[in-house]
């Protein structure tokens, strides 16, 4: 194997890691800082949030917060840069927003769902995008709810199963298309392979499809632009990239799919500094870095003259195996290109640096 071309590809360098004494479900960078947050569940059944700071090649624990219920997911997406409040969803269906400086009492709290909140996303904060800050939660009780921190107790939008329909677990949610104050969409992925796109401006279902295997993670490449691409990952190692610029009246959005690892792909995260690069994390403890290339023409006319999208191609830039257990959470730092944190079920959180992303 000749080393030169291989070393010109982006390398994933392990920078620091920390063994934890609890199960880690989510890890997030605190915006505008070198601090990261680990959320999880301790063996004694309570929720733990730990705040670490990256110092040299080590992670130093700054603060540990304990909560009565295990925490499944969190986001900084809906807060301002000054406040940096953390919104979390826990195993009991509670949505809480915490001020990390004073974490005893939540700033906002609501029992949003009857069952565990599997996924949470926020939009409108951090100086990105326009419009009111909102938080969306997806739960095992089959509903997807959108919350506004200024409105107590009731969600501003609720996507629930029709009466009498047997519910399917919602595994993942994501905001997108928030390019002005009115427009916003929520994309939700369910355990039976359904992907549904809800338009919050018209309060209707804009598109749905089924990718046969349970959807573990969905993410738009950018939340705050006209929706461009959506990546959905699923069980059995497959992920689909949808081109969201052109919606065909019957065929929906064009997509390309790739089968990467033999195991579940748990998370997909786009690089904040380059929306065509994303990383997927797998059940075999591996991370794959992908690049999407656009086709020559992004849309074409079909036989009836309706516009339909053309999907591009995905190529693998690098892959690395870090652990024997699934890597369940992944987050890129919005401040430093290539810095990312991943948390795996082997109770370790790892800080990684991906090099040479400038040269792509």
């Amino acid at each position: 194997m000749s080393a030169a071309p291989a070393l010109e590809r982006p390398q994933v360098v392990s920078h620091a890691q920390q063994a934890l004494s609890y199960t880690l479900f989510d890890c997030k960078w605190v915006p505008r800082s070198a601090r990261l947050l680990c959320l999880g569940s301790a063996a004694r059944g309570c929720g733990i949030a730990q705040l670490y700071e990256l110092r040299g090649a080590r992670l130093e624990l700054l603060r540990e917060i304990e909560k009565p219920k295990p925490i499944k997911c969190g986001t900084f997406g809906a807060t301002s840069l000054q406040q940096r409040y953390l919104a979390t969803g826990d195993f009991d269906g509670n949505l809480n927003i915490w001020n990390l400086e004073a974490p005893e009492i939540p700033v906002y709290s609501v029992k949003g769902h009857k069952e565990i909140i599997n996924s949470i996303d926020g939009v409108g904060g951090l100086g990105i995008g326009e419009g009111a800050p909102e938080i969306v939660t997806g739960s095992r009780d089959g509903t997807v709810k959108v919350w506004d921190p200024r409105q107590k107790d009731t969600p501003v939008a609720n996507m629930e199963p029709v009466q009498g329909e047997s519910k399917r677990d919602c595994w993942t949610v994501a905001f997108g298309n928030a390019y002005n104050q009115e427009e916003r969409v929520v994309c939700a992925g369910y355990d039976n392979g359904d992907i549904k796109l809800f338009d919050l401006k018209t309060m209707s279902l804009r598109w749905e499809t089924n990718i046969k295997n349970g959807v573990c993670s969905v993410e738009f490449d950018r939340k705050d632009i006209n929706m461009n691409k959506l990546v959905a990952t699923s069980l059995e190692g497959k992920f689909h990239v949808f081109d969201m610029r052109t919606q065909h009246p019957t065929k929906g959005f064009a997509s390309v799919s790739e089968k990467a690892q033999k195991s579940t792909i748990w998370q997909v995260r786009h690089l904040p500094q380059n929306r065509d690069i994303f990383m997927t994390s797998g059940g075999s403890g591996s991370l794959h870095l992908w690049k999407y290339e656009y086709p020559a023409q992004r849309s074409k006319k079909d036989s009836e003259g309706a516009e339909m999208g053309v999907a591009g191609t995905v190529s693998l830039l690098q892959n690395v195996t870090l652990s024997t257990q699934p890597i369940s959470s992944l987050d890129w730092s919005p401040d430093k290109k290539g810095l990312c944190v991943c948390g795996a079920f082997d109770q370790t959180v790892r800080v990684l640096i991906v090099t040479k992303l400038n040269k792509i």
Partner: protein
Amino acid sequence: TAVFVSLPVPGARATPGSIFCTERYLKVSVPPFLFEAILFAPIDDTNSTAKIENGNIFFTLYKKEPAMWDSLTLENVDKEKLQYLRENAVLKAHEKAKEEREAKKVTKEEHKKYALEATMKLEEAERKRIEDLKEKERQKVTEELELWKNQQKEADKYKSIQKEQELHQEIGQIKEKKNEKMNKTRIPNEGISKTKHKPSKGHGSCSMFSQNLKEEQLPAPRSAATIKVNFTPRAFPTALRESRIAEEEEWLHKQAEARRTVSADLSELEDLKEEEKNPDWLKDKGNKMFAMGNYLAAVNAYNLAVRLNNRLPLLYLNRAACHLKLRNLHKAIEDSSKALELLTPPVPDNENARVKAYVRRGTAFCQLELYTEGLQDYEAALKIDPKNKDIEKDAEKIRHLIQGTIQGS
């Protein structure tokens, strides 16, 4: 020191293989010629040479001990000694060959080992080189990170100082805000803050002002609305954790087994026609009779079928229906129960059959005035098939009946 022997071999071709030489024995066999010589004294056979030229073989034999030989060969040797010497020679040759072989092997192995080590070293070197490159990358990247972090820290400090300053400014401004336009007051302050802005990254501090603006401009919370969704139905195969594959397999297996059962009691049945020995054909016959209203005939058909194969649940199920019509209620109950027994494990495949079995048994119970048992069976049927209106109606009727008897008594 050497003996030179010239051997004429006219006409015949001599090859190296036809020469056999050991320390004391020399033989040349070139058919039809044979030359044999027991040498006077031992020679150094490894160094001695033989040259084969057309028609002649020229030997150069180096003596082990330099001395004059009386003659080339040993004289006065009798046959036995000759034989012995010959054999000895052959043996010696063998041994020598063996030794040579082994020596060769040993050298070969050493060579192999050497080659292996050499390749390993090369690979090691290659690996190390890559590792080193990676290490360098790592260090470079770590340094960059540290640099960036320090920059962040300074930026943060800067921001906190700026915040304080801006707070002071704001307090002074609040009085003016109500009177003057926002833009007018903003410009002079922005001007000042802009010059301080240059070294720090991001627009965090600047947005403090725009934050105030933004709060006034943030849209009101959305009016609450609900969107109803339908889910794609998942027919078998279901999501793996919900799948009842094991049970479905069991059911299929059982059905296959049942079909293969042939009752042993064939002695009386020999005079039956071929098709009359087929339980499926008999079942069809029975169904036809039932449809025509000839319930006794149907029962007969089913009985015969059961004798042939007592593991087909549908036979019992249909026989139960006949018995119901014939008002043989106890037999109906028996048959329905047997059918239900055979219809385990409960899977979507045999849903219809199970519903029918429960309903028939329930009916039989009710006609025997055992209303509670009947209701139980109707409710079981309803559980499998909740959308069936008839079963619901009947269940309701039974409930009323039960309540009526309780009230009456």
